[in-house]
């Protein structure tokens, strides 16, 4: 039950002029599962190591329940980190690995055995306690790493790319396991990932970090509907960015005048809409006629490259909707106002 807050957390590595992490401030409420998302080298792993006490920040503060923890040694912070490559100790059995944290806390041998047994059941590996880590599959190793972290009932759990080393079918199993254990034990959890899908699937809230700066911190769906800027929208797969002028109710651009949803900003701006929100078919509102430049069939969806006047528009549609349209021919499309978003 720990509220984590990062205050202007900054890290400049020796010999580097550019900060790897630049004044990151985040409030992570008790028991929430938060993703730090960003491309490799954006500063997200640096952030995690500073919370764990494996790196010292250049400036700024990390507090747990309003108490700074920067002066505390890593082993006294109550933070456990699960690394991407699991780092199970190769010289110990699975049970000894899971019990390691309790042994360091001088818990009785019999008590350790009992709790290790419980953890093995919890992560669904009841009979593997005596095995060596090298005898386990990747998915099993990760569950052991998770059990080893959870057994000490940490205040804060840190996960490094928790799903990225797993096969597609294991990812959802692992996602459900992490979420259910985390909810049950109420541990404030922070994980880092470069994969927006991993972030969206697992987290309550996502913090997107680009070039060492926090770009947006919100619930996952907001990144798709109302991205803070073009870089955020691009990171989440946005491809349509059209400059123009907003009056608050309509947007004037190379696409003509389009009706906007309520509460849109006014003035110069960039119109964005997601490829999957471009609708095929005529409409009274925001209807346009496009020329089909190219189409790529992807099985469950078809990607369309459309041209409206001189402006390219990327769209993703159901293959059934675009069955008859030929490359070079006209396609009626429309952009529902609620799918439009104006960036400053």
């Amino acid at each position, binding site marked *: 039950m720990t509220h984590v807050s990062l205050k202007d957390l900054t890290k400049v590595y020796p010999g580097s002029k550019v900060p790897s992490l630049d004044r990151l401030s985040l409030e992570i409420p008790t028991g929430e599962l938060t993703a730090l998302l960003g491309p490799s080298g954006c500063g997200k792993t640096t952030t995690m*190591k500073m919370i*764990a*006490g*494996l790196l010292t920040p250049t400036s700024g503060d990390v507090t747990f329940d309003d108490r700074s923890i920067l002066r505390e*040694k*890593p*082993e*006294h912070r109550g*933070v*456990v*980190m699960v*690394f991407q*490559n699991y*780092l199970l*100790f*190769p*010289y110990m059995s699975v049970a000894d690995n899971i019990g*390691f*944290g309790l042994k*360091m*806390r001088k818990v009785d041998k019999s008590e350790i055995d009992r709790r290790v047994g419980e953890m093995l059941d919890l992560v669904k590996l009841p009979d593997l306690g005596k095995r060596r880590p090298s005898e386990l599959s990747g998915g099993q190793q990760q569950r052991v790493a998770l059990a*080893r*972290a959870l057994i*000490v009932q940490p205040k804060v759990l*840190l996960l490094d790319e928790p799903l990225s080393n797993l096969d597609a079918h294991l990812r959802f199993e692992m996602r459900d396991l992490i979420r259910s254990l985390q909810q049950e034990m109420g541990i404030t959890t922070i994980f880092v990932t470069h994969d927006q899908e991993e972030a969206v699937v697992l987290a309550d809230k996502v913090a997107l970090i680009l070039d060492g700066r926090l770009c947006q911190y919100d619930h996952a769906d907001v990144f798709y509907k109302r991205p803070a800027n073009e870089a955020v929208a691009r990171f989440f797969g946005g491809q349509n960015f059209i400059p123009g002028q907003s009056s608050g109710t309509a947007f004037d651009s190379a696409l003509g005048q389009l009706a906007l949803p309520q509460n849109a900003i006014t003035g110069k701006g960039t119109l964005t809409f997601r490829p999957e929100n471009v609708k095929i078919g005529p409409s009274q509102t925001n209807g346009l006629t496009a020329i089909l430049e190219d189409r790529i069939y992807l099985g469950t969806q078809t990607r369309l490259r459309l041209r409206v006047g001189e402006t390219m528009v990327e769209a993703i549609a159901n293959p059934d909707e675009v069955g008859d349209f030929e490359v070079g021919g006209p396609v009626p499309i429309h952009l529902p106002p609620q799918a439009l978003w104006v960036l400053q």
Partner: protein
Amino acid sequence: MQNDSPWLRAFRGLAGAVLIVWLVLPLIPLAIWSFARGWFFPDILPKQWTLSAWEYALSDRAGVIDSLGLTIGISLAATVLSILVGVPAGRALGLYKFRGKELIELLILAPTIVPGIAVALGIHSVFITLGLNNTVGGVVLVHLVPTLPYMVLVMSGIFANYDPAFESQARSLGASWLKTFWYVTFPAILPGIIVGGLFAFLVSWSQYILTLLIGGGRVVTLPLLLFNFATSGRNDITGAIGIVYILPGIIILILTARHLSGRNGAVGGFGRI
């Protein structure tokens, strides 16, 4: 292995036999001498046998037992110091990149290239001012010059294949740095400590010039004693002491042979000599 041609197997067997003969053959006359009462050309074996050389060598008068104890003590001390210095040095060289790393590597390797007598003469004058000449402590310290390169090389090979993130993981699970070292780092580097320690012990065990110069003839280790008898023409006693001298090496080799296989990362560092 099973698919090797018979010729290859025969060649491998032959090569092994040649190697064993090459290593063992010179020791046979040593053993024969130690039991001989005179052994003259053109006899293939001595005409008369006796235990008198062994009786003398193992008696108090010869000083072999005292010298054996002293030599073991010096070599053990040099080995322990090598480990204490070599493990951190090997870690720095194996794990980190820093300015001047190549120069430091060269300096550590230098004693294996520069003749021992040149090193000893320089150290001799320094040790005189420090009062370390003619002392056992001085001999132990000077033995570090040839033993450290082996220890550091072995440990840098070990650390080059070591992931320090295991230590971060242990810390984050609540281990102090001391417990982290004991439970995580030490088991991972133990093979290197064994192999490096073995080399350090044997290198120290076989020092002659350094012991002679720094010990000033007062620290009489086994090789010095052996040399005295060898130059005095007592081949029988030289043979007996010679056998005593090579025994520890053979015992250590037998005990640690399994750590010396090519698959062991500990011997990887030697690729850089």
